């Protein structure tokens, strides 16, 4: 692809300007900015690799690409402590409940990157009898990252898109999407009773 053809997602920046055009309270606005700066610069990944993309993700952490430069390197193995889940690899019908559960175990604010063709749409396995056609059927996705597998540079781009997206959200006055923990507990207790 030529460099001129590349369309960066500038609409996100426009969205920020539009949102701020009406003006906000100085204190609240600045606090929001500070918090968003904090979240977006301290994205700790949750190690969730199911196939090939996971190897590229390891390369992303290794010496040449070194995601530590951006502060992304503190990979947590417990979903409770991670900030985003980068779903690397195909999700099958057997894995789907596990992925959903892992997502629900994460603490807010949490984000999802669908990494690789399989997670975006089912990819080469779209016609299979037991592959989920895109993880957005199970969990909400923030950034879609195509490629089979995507190169580490593309992964960086996806992460930066996520950072941009985070800068739009408002902490005071409602996070963009939020399901309260209490509601989740009520739901799961209902299913448990059944």
């Amino acid at each position, binding site marked *: 692809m030529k460099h001129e053809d590349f369309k960066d997602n500038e609409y996100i920046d426009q969205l920020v300007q539009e949102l701020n055009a009406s003006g906000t309270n100085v204190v609240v606005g600045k606090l929001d900015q500070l918090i968003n700066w904090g979240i977006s610069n301290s994205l700790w990944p949750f190690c969730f690799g199911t196939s090939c993309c996971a190897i590229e993700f390891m390369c992303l952490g290794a010496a040449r690409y070194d995601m530590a430069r951006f502060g992304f390197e503190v990979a947590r193995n417990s979903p409770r*402590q991670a900030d985003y889940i980068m779903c690397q690899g195909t999700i099958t019908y057997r894995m789907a409940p596990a992925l959903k559960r892992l997502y629900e175990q994460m603490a807010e604010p949490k984000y999802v990157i669908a990494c690789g063709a399989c997670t975006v749409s089912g990819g080469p396995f779209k016609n299979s009898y037991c592959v989920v056609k895109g993880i957005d059927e199970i969990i909400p996705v923030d950034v879609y990252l195509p490629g089979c597998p995507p190169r580490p540079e593309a992964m960086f781009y996806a992460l930066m898109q996520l950072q941009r997206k985070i800068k739009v959200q408002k902490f005071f006055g409602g996070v963009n999407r939020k399901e309260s923990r209490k509601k989740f507990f009520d739901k799961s207790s209902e299913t448990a009773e059944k």
Partner: protein
Amino acid sequence: MFDFSVVTNWFNDLLLGVMPQWLATTIECVIVAVLLLLAYTVLAMFYIMYERWVCAWFQCRRGPLRVGPWGSLQIFADVIKMLIKEVVGLWKTDNFLHKLAPYFVLVASVVVFACLPWGKGLQAIDFNIGVFFMTAVSSLGVVGILLAGWSSNSKYTMIGAMRSGAQMISYELSIGIAMLTIVCLAGTMSVTGLVEAQQNGWFIFTGHIPAIIAFIIYVIAATAETNRGPFDLPEAEHELTAGYHTEYSGIHFGFFYLAEYLNLFIVSGIATLLFLGGWMPFHVSGWDGFNAVMDYIPSTIWFLGKAIFVSFIIIWFKWSFPRVRIDQMLALEWRYLMPIGLFNLVLMAVIVSMGWHFAG
């Protein structure tokens, strides 16, 4: 060398001039507590970044460098994120104990931290049993870890907690023995006394071979005591996902994280105090000019520098060594470190009683 007690005494006198004794003491306590907590946080944050940079350096990487100049603001971003992160409540657990556990770990490390001698005259309190007090309080941390593992109602955290119980109680012995060896040499348990005794040569130099052995034992045992690699079995990321704090999120996890790094500083600080002369500058008896130059460097810098150096060694072997197995770890303590330590203690006693150690 600048003596900080001048400042503290002046402040004390100033307060006494306008208010009664009890009020002055209370105000001093509050100020000291605030300063200590501040120092605690700043140091912990520094240590987190320090380890990230050092390990990046070992691994041919650059480490954090994008957020702020040379990545210096990275840790503030992490802290902000940690503060607003949701604290997940668990279902079917003892919620009170679950919430209490991180504070136990934190408080234990803060109390030990408070006893460290920061510089000449810069010390919160000076007991005559200073070192003894430190060992006693630092063992409290294990209660927090056990509680955390048990109250999370998960098999992984339970295994992690049990491992950590076995590990910390075992290695406490070696630390105690290594400390006793030095106490035997110094003849005092008071923190100030220990530092003053190293006026003309640090114990690792004056203490002959037993001091060196004690130092090595202490560093190994201290690494185990702080749950760091190669003894990071209670966390053992690759076995137990995140060990005893698997179920903690948000700021509660932050407390564990903070305490872990601060414990690294504390054990390095105690090593500095016992073996490397605390805040005492590097002196060679006879070289008066050299000693005078050394005295120009502030005592706090001496202390911090030495502690950071010891931490560097501990970080170094965390990142290069594989993790030991639980049975090997216990065997190392009970079969090797403790017998050697006991023998070493006897050796030190003999040397001290015969006066064979370097006078210093």
